């Protein structure tokens, strides 16, 4: 039995199993349903920890301190996804048994299209998985206040968790897409049934935007699938495919395998960076020669055909990158696709807002990191400047829009847009040289995603706590909440400062790393772009501070007789918010807790993207 397959699959499907279990609860046992669902999310968290332990052990096993040119430890290179995928294929070919401890599991699913049930983890997905299981557990605690149709709520909530986890674990593009879509529907109903007054509008808007983006992802998925990847596939696959056609020419190989597609995309970029025709011919010839042994004889026509590969054409890379980017940018959300977010966040019930801001937005960033960048790196590089501009618009626009809000929840929603801008900025700053800086940026973006997941979920929860008491969210009508609720006021301040990016709290680390790497960003046409962007990004931190401090002042400070008799934060609410507060502090002081196991693979991604130019 392959343990890692079991662990990862359990992690994905335990929530669904618990959702099915809910069917057997009779009416009137709402309290038990909540506990059952809480146990479900807790079990998922436990299993994600098992996966994490296995993953960490794998990193430890391969520990070695020599460095590659890009600055990652040499042995960690063998834990990169691509290296592990190749090793796994070798092991399987040698012994017929898949290896149990490599964090990869692949089984055929739909033979006609070569679709696989292919799961895997590396630092990037591991971080997201842990964030997901923690936040779902905490949001389930926050869901105790949901009184309406508890059974339906818990079922949808758990199915949503399956969708999210599946998306993070999937390494097959098709599987990824399936899970990506599975998330839509539960979210639609969670907003639409349990949301605020304009819930139906917000829910359909969310659904429509995301589905619109999915169509583009689907087209890109088809385009990748129909590209022949026989030059890049592992030799076992090629040999098997060639055997199947029995010597009648070479077999084409089509795949949804994200790791393999990333390799193809990388080769395409390397090829397009070559200057002269002769060099390009040589490059292709090298690919052909490398494959010579496994394949039936090659000809000059074979070489010619390879020169026309889809991945070797700038148009293809541009179009596909844009398709993917639009699909994922809607989720992040990147300006101008952001308008669904304030509506959805404001109308959603508190726990769902936490999930939305804490996790679903990260799926967009994750998609860009895992799919758009590795598979279409050439376009990503060529468009780096414009992506940075977009990110900058997000940061500044989000901050100013947040400042203008009078609705507390809307303010937090716009601050999310602003903060997710840093994520894109960190990813987008692909420099001409000095790639260590870019690695800082990428790591910063990842760290920012985690930090934002914690702080924004906390902020939405804080808003929810007073909404439960005051039944309104109008910032101008609060005042003096600190007096009746001192404990709550203190924790809120901590969480909001984390969101602001105060040094010592989690929000600071990611933003700092991103701004640092932005400083060194430049393109041939815009040599000083990075400096301008970095200064602007740093200045926006001041605006962020302004709106958050102003909010704290308007809500918590002063005195207000109307709210004198409010109860302070309850124990249940404390159980939900304290872990977030602790995480905000710990991750602010000890970023190494996360970076030490996440960084090798984020830097590895950078390393694989820039290898040629070192």
């Amino acid at each position: 039995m392959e343990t890692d397959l079991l662990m990862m699959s359990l992690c994905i499907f335990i929530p669904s199993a618990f959702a099915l279990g809910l069917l057997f609860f009779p009416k009137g046992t709402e309290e038990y349903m909540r506990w059952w669902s809480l146990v479900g999310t807790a079990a998922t968290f436990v299993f994600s920890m098992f996966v994490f332990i296995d993953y960490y052990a794998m990193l430890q096993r391969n520990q070695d301190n020599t460095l590659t040119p890009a600055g990652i430890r040499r042995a960690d290179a063998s834990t990169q996804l691509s290296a592990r995928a190749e090793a796994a294929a070798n092991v399987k070919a040698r012994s017929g048994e898949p290896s149990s401890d490599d964090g990869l599991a692949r089984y055929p699913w739909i033979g006609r299209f070569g679709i696989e049930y292919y799961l895997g983890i590396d630092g990037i997905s591991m971080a997201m998985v842990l964030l997901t299981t923690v936040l779902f557990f905490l949001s389930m605690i926050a869901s105790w206040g949901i009184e309406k149709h508890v059974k339906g709520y818990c079922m949808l909530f758990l199915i949503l968790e399956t969708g999210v986890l599946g998306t993070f674990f999937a390494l097959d593009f098709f599987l990824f897409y399936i899970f990506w879509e599975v998330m839509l529907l539960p979210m639609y109903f969670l907003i639409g049934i349990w949301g605020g007054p304009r819930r139906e509008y917000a829910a359909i808007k969310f659904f429509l935007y995301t589905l619109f983006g999915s169509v583009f992802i689907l087209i890109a998925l088809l385009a990748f699938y129909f590209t022949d990847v026989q030059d890049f596939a592992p030799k076992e696959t090629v040999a098997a495919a060639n055997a199947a056609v029995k010597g009648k020419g070479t077999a084409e190989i089509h795949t949804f395998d994200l790791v393999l597609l990333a390799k193809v995309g990388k080769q395409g970029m390397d090829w397009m960076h070559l200057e002269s025709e002769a060099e390009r011919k040589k490059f292709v010839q090298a690919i052909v020669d490398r494959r010579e042994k496994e394949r039936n004889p090659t000809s000059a026509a074979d070489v010619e055909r390879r020169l026309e590969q889809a991945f070797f054409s700038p148009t293809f890379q541009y179009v596909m990158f844009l398709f993917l980017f639009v699909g994922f940018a809607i989720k992040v959300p990147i300006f101008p696709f952001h308008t669904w977010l304030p509506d959805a966040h404001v109308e959603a019930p508190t726990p769902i807002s936490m999930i939305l801001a804490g996790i679903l937005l990260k799926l967009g960033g994750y998609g860009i990191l895992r799919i758009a960048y590795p598979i279409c790196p050439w376009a990503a590089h060529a468009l780096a400047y414009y992506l940075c501009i977009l990110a900058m618009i997000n940061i500044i626009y989000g901050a100013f829009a947040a400042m203008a809000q009078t609705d507390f929840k809307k303010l937090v929603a716009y601050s999310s847009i602003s903060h997710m801008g840093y994520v894109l900025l960190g990813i987008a700053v692909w420099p001409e040289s000095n790639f260590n800086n870019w690695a800082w940026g990428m790591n910063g973006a990842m760290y920012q995603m985690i930090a934002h997941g914690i702080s924004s979920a906390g902020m939405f929860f804080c808003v929810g706590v007073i909404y439960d008491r005051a039944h309104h969210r109008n910032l101008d009508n609060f005042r003096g909440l600190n007096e009746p609720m001192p404990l709550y006021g203190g924790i809120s301040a901590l969480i909001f400062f984390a969101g602001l990016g105060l040094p010592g709290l989690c929000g600071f680390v990611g933003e700092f790393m991103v701004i640092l790497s932005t400083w060194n960003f430049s393109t041939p046409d815009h040599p000083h772009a990075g400096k301008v962007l970095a200064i602007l990004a740093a200045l926006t931190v001041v605006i962020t501070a302004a709106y958050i401090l102003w909010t704290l002042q308007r809500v918590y400070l002063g005195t207000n007789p109307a709210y004198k008799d409010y109860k302070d934060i309850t124990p249940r609410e404390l159980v939900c918010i304290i872990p977030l507060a602790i995480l905000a502090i710990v991750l602010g002081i000890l970023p190494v807790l996360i970076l030490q196991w996440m960084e090798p693979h984020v830097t590895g991604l950078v390393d694989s993207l820039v290898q040629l130019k070192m």
Partner: protein
Amino acid sequence: MNATFAEALQSRLPADAVAFLPELVLCGAIVVMLLIRLVPRYDRVHMGAIAILIAGFACGLACYQWTQMTNVARTEYLFGGMLVFDNFTIFLKIFLLAFLTLVILLTLLTGIPDREDSADFYVLLFGSTLGMSLMASSSHLLMVFLSIEMASLPSYALAGFLKGRRQSSEAALKYVVYGGGASGVMLYGISLLAGKFGTGFLPVILVKITAEGHLMEPAVVMGLTFILAGIGFKLASVPFHFWCPDVFEGAAAEVGAFLSVASKGAALAMLARVVLGMGGLTGTADRFDAWNVATDYLVPVLAVFAVLTTTFGNLAAYGQTNLKRLLAYSTIAHAGFMMMGLAALNRDGAAAVLFYLVTYLFMNLGAFAVVAMLRNLTGQEDISYFRGFIYRSPILVITLGVFLLSLLGMPPLAGFMAKFHIFTVLYDAGQEYDRLGKPHLSWTMYALLLAGGLNTVISLFYYVKVLKVMILEKTLEDVEERPVEAKPAPILHSAYAVAIALVVLVLGVYVNPLADASGRQGGIADFRSTPRPTVTKGPPKNAPIGLNPGMKMGGGKKKKKKGMGME
């Protein structure tokens, strides 16, 4: 070759009849059901049980035929070239008969034909299915016309089956008038083609049209257009769709289910035979050349109609307030989707359509079934009546949700895999046409792909609108502040709906069997490799038992040679 046609026909009759057995069973059933009423003791017996047994038996027979021929791609002509028997035929036969069985089961549950009418109802249903089965296998213009009429005439009566309901009669009348017009036009087209080429045998006509370059002659263009119009009517493709919403609204939901799936399936099969016989990708550039004139025109024409049909269906569905009418427009949109698959003009396209048809069978049958059950519960079919209905009968609403979302194409439901099949075919064909130096066809394919994707987004509006009303909105009682009364469906109804919903889910996750089967059975008879049908005397020795041992035209070149040698 010295035997006369009549002699040969006679000598092969027994064998042909064996291949035709499932249909013969249906014929027998029709006679039995009509006659059984003459016996006074049985004149009031509900025929449902008998009907379902016979339909199941016929389906079993067809399945048996399938097991006999899955591994060989074969094309045989029955009854002197009237019908073609190939992998495609057998797939559709099973499809139609299985569907017939499920529909009869549904009618038994919802009780739409009462005891008195049951014989009439099932006779009409069987007759129509028989006609559709012939549609799926006709290879002669005469048979094309006869089978369409045979499928249509009982449908007219079925549409008006709710006697005494004005809408129902109106629907039937509208259907008859449109159907009559379409048949007339089609017959005119058939006579043009038959007169022009001196034969009605489709393979010969199609070969002449394309290979001998008769395509652009006025008589041929008109003849083809009229025939395609006739098929378009059965398919409810824009601009021949006007009957569809009215008929579906007027007729009982059970009849709507039957018409929307079976008659579309048969019409698509017929369309596939005609268009794939005339042009399309064969995989190699040299063979492609001979047919590319027809392909140059056929692909854009089919593509335009497919896009129009899908887009129109989806846009028009949005404004509907009646559930059946909304579903009627949705079926129009789905017909368009399947036409997109055919527009690629290759076998993969035909295979994708087969896959689509099977998933469509379950999701559409399910949707109509739930509508019928809701009607039985409440007597209503207006969407607005079902506000907040999930709190009254949760199982029906949730299963309806599964069907609608599958129709929308949400993974992991079957409808998504079906759309995915179509999309892969389009992208693949786009690349292939590009490689063959046909950029305009290649762009047509990509445009279709984009149109298909965007149409999915458009269709979101109305499918989700239904769910929104049923799930998100407050119940009527809530608004009027009366207590909500649970109105659960009878347990058998729920079981039927849940079973079909499970099939929809399973087909979306456990895709391999159906994908492989449809991929294999997409082996539609390749008319282009078929010579003029000659009549051989007696069955060849190597014919498998239980199947027609008549002429073997063979799918590939190898087989053809063998057949020639025997003569």
